[in-house]
């Protein structure tokens, strides 16, 4: 029952966070140049009918907190406004709907790639501290967090797409193929996911290394050795599980960074996700889309953190049985 308790408490904390994000998104209406009506309707602000509808929805003549309340309600109900730049008159919700999944797929793939690389390298780095491997891995980690991801994407495209022709240079699937296969999808996913995962790979490697070093210093590791366990068992059974526990939380905290990176990576590789949409929205001055994206990005991060917390509470016995 304590797990349920824990989860409920976490959800309760979520609520003010979501409200805070909504405040920021809402404030754009007033920060943007021009009247609030123009911000929401664009050129249609001159149309009395549209104006009247917006007024009814948001009450632009009423005090701010009423407007905020009404806007919040309609957003929660799913009405995210009408696009004014990208595809005028199209409901924002529809515009975004098709983009969420690609971004999530990209982000998830990046995380998986990052973990696949970071965990082994981090563990070996820790076990062989100060060795040549460790030094190279550390420099690699520094490189990973210093690379501009959009440049890395360009370089990879240059080598693998332009020069070698192994991988496609943009998009989700080859538009010429009538029945796209998983294999084709994966080919397109490779460069974007790798680029997005690079920074995480680097950061996580250092983290796993540090966590592992910390754990290896603990008393229970000496106990394990005193029981006559093989060094392999000591490291991979006793140490590893403890070292990886905080990883879950760290992944949750890295979500905002990942989604930020997705903006650039999607733009350079032509991946049709929310990040690319955001950039398009900025160039089209499509404020309703921008506001909706802020909300959705923020909510995604919070949900992601919630999931991380739940997983963590399940995996760490100290919380599970408390």
């Amino acid at each position: 029952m304590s797990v349920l308790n824990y989860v409920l408490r976490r959800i309760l904390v979520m609520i003010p966070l979501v409200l805070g994000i909504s405040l920021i998104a809402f404030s754009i209406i007033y920060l943007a140049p021009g009247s609030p009506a123009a911000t929401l309707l664009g050129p249609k602000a001159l149309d009395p009918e549209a104006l009247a509808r917006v007024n009814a929805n948001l009450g632009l003549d009423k005090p701010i907190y009423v407007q905020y309340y009404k806007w919040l309600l309609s957003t929660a109900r799913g009405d995210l406004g009408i696009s004014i730049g990208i595809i005028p008159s199209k409901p924002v919700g529809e515009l975004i709907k098709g983009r969420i999944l690609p971004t999530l797929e990209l982000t998830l793939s990046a995380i998986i790639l990052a973990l696949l690389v970071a965990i082994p390298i981090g563990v070996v780095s820790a076990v062989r501290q100060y060795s040549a491997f460790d030094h190279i891995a550390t420099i690699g980690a520094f490189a990973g967090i210093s690379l501009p991801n959009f440049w890395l994407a360009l370089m990879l495209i240059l080598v693998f797409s332009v020069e070698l022709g192994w991988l496609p240079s943009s998009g989700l699937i080859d538009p010429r193929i009538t029945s796209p296969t998983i294999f084709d999808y994966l080919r397109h996913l490779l460069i974007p996911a790798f680029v997005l995962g690079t920074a995480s790979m680097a950061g996580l490697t250092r983290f796993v290394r540090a966590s592992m070093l910390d754990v290896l210093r603990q008393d229970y590791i000496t106990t394990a050795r005193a029981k006559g366990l093989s060094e392999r068992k000591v490291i991979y059974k006793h140490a590893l599980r403890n070292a990886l526990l905080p990883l879950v939380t760290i992944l949750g905290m890295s979500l905002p960074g990942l989604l930020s990176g997705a903006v650039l990576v999607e733009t350079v590789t032509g991946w049709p996700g929310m990040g690319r949409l955001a950039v398009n929205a900025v160039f089209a001055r499509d404020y309703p889309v921008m506001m909706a994206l802020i909300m959705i990005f923020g909510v995604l991060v919070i949900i992601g953190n919630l999931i991380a917390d739940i997983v963590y509470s399940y995996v760490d016995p100290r919380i599970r049985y408390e």
Partner: protein
Amino acid sequence: MRWKAFKKNKRALFGLGVLAVMYALAGFTFINTFADYHWLPDPNDVHTGEKFYLVQKASPLSYATLERLMDYPSLQEAIKKPGRKVPIKNRGEFIKLVTTLRKMGYDDEEPLDIYRKVYYIQHEEIYRVSLISVENQPPSIKHPFGTDDFGRDVLSRLIYASRISLSVGFVAVGIALAIGIFLGAISGYYGGIVDQIIMRIVDIWISIPGLVLLITMVAVFGPGLFKAMVLIGILSWAGTARIVRGQFLSLREQGFVEAARATGARDWKIIFKHLLPNAMAPIIVDATLFLAGAILLEAGLSFLGLGAQPPTASWGNMLTDGQKYLRTAWWIAIYPGLAIFITVLSFNFIGDGLRDALDPRLRGVR
């Protein structure tokens, strides 16, 4: 401050060395401006590239004919060698051809890296004449990093652009530090409700992916380098605030506050004269690492076209051109990115070295 430890850190020293060279180069560009000694070509100078004819047999859907073929000797030569690129030896010929093309209605808005198609009929055979103007010149002795689509020397643009990329980070860091230290100090010192509220705000702030909020703000306030740096600073105070707050809390536990209060000092004085100096170590480390991040953010923004606006060159917007010409002129894309990478790497090395030197116990994640 364990200077000895810092000096032993090879990576930090490497970073310091690299940055010293970069800032020196950037500084020397001012010699160009003031002392009139041009050790580096002006970044806006155009070094025109070669021009070629390429004549191929064609079946056009429409065509225009060139009169007076004898005015174009190199073209005559090219017609004799279909399929081979023939250089235009006379600049005058090139200018005349462009003028003629314009009169025929072919508009020349963009830089000359375009294909022009002119059809010429001779002996009932139709030839398509392509005018290839390669401004993008690959690296050579004269231009070690090549030239871009305007014929400008990439190396010199790179160094001039470094003036921007190396200095703007400080604006952002300054602002972020100011806000972060202020809020973090208040939060850590007063505790209670104030602390709770500020920490909630910090949580909200970091929940929105930075770049998304950043580009939205650029949409709202308009693009531009300085505006961008201010925005980056405003958007990034949260991490610093947390660190400052953490430091203050631990200092409180160690009794610093009580000791200062015993001397009868007022709140502000306690914060600034007693607590803050002791908290500086992690703040400095954080600032250095954030500087690295700010450079990346500026580059990203400029790459998207939202930061430094052309003709101002920043490494980021040099990469925008790089993307455009990735297939034909790869050198435009490699070097600016490499510059960003090495600079950020150096700052990261230094920040890490500082962290080890100032307090080896400081192992955390920003």
